[in-house]
């Protein structure tokens, strides 16, 4: 699988790596049980610190998308919910759009409540 990062972007490198794995899951390029490339190799390929890649993987672990085991690498969880991942991705995009429009977090929640009612 490929990873792409832009060091000049406002988004952190670890977040960019996590975003790429999420996208691969949504595109079905990654499926439950698949192994992610070793962090060391990803770091070498992108010329970044290995801990940055591991931080990206840790974000995905905290989201319940992958499992990280010492010495055994990272693997997509077999019980991963791709639909929920998709929804979260859309929420993330929504939060980003709200930030660009200068809408506060509370303002965004209010707007969402209005739509949901």
């Amino acid at each position: 699988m490929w990873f792409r990062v832009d060091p000049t972007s406002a988004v952190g490198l670890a977040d960019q790596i996590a975003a790429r794995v999420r996208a691969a899951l949504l595109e079905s390029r990654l499926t439950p049980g698949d192994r992610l490339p070793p962090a060391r190799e990803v770091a070498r390929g992108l010329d970044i610190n290995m801990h940055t890649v591991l931080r990206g993987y840790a974000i995905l672990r905290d989201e319940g998308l992958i499992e990280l085991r010492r010495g055994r690498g990272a693997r997509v969880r077999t019980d991963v919910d791709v639909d929920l991942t998709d929804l979260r991705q859309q929420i993330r995009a929504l939060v980003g759009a709200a930030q660009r429009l200068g809408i506060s977090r509370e303002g965004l929640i209010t707007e969402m409540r209005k739509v949901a009612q």
Partner: protein
Amino acid sequence: MNVRRAVVAVLVLLAPVLVWLGHRAYAAVTPDPMATHWGFHGVDGTTAAWPYFVAILCASGALGLAAVAVSWLAHSTHAGRMLTSMLAFGAWIATVPYLESLLLARHIRDAHDVPMPWYAVLGGVGIPLVVAATAYWLHGDTAPPLPRGPVPPAMPLADSERVTWIGHAHSRPFQVLSPLLMAAAAVLVPFQAHVSIPLGIVGVALAWTSVIAVRVDQRGLHTLWGPFGWPRTRVGLGNIADAHSERIEPLQWGGWGYRISSRGTAAVLRRGPGLVVERVHGPRYAVTVDGADEGARVLIGLLARERSRS
């Protein structure tokens, strides 16, 4: 090329014909049983002439026919070329010593008096080697160009972006075989240490070549062997003229493992998708890897960006 292969066929089938002619010409003037083995102190083995002739004729004929069959059926592969050459060697190594033992035994009554001078020993091995080399040269490499898949579109890359692609390939037979060999080696240690050591070495070697990782990045194409990613080889981005993916047929690249053939060099673990790069300096390089299409796309993207910069 067909003419060349016909010449190869004549060359290898000449061997059983010579066996037959030699028997016809000299059977009457050579001792029976005939001398068939020599030690440091002269003849130490004799065999009845007629069964020995039949055995040699069958061996030479069978190897010759096998060489012709392989040459015609597997002519497009490097392995076919190698096998033809080896079978030609086999047909002639059966024939030449037989002919020599007839020629040297002419008009000698007792088979134990037949000499075996050094030049006959040299010829017995040298002539088959020359025939094998000639067959190899004549056979040539007639492999047709491989059908290329559609060239994948380059991945568009901004100047500030960094990209890497990582893929793997596994050899299932090696993955199954290597632990079996290592287990067999471990069991045999107390009984047959001299067998268990080479067995263990082969098991480890198979484990080492059962997995390969491939990385594409701004430095080029990296191939990492074995479970620990070592040894690793690299084709620098500046030395890559073009890249594409294609279906790799191991026999067309000279077999499995790290291969050097007229088609180029290749790291081959299995049949299937592979990433192929044309080098600016040096031969083409191919590596079997899953998802080679995507790898080629990233590599072409990196090449395109590199060219737009210069």
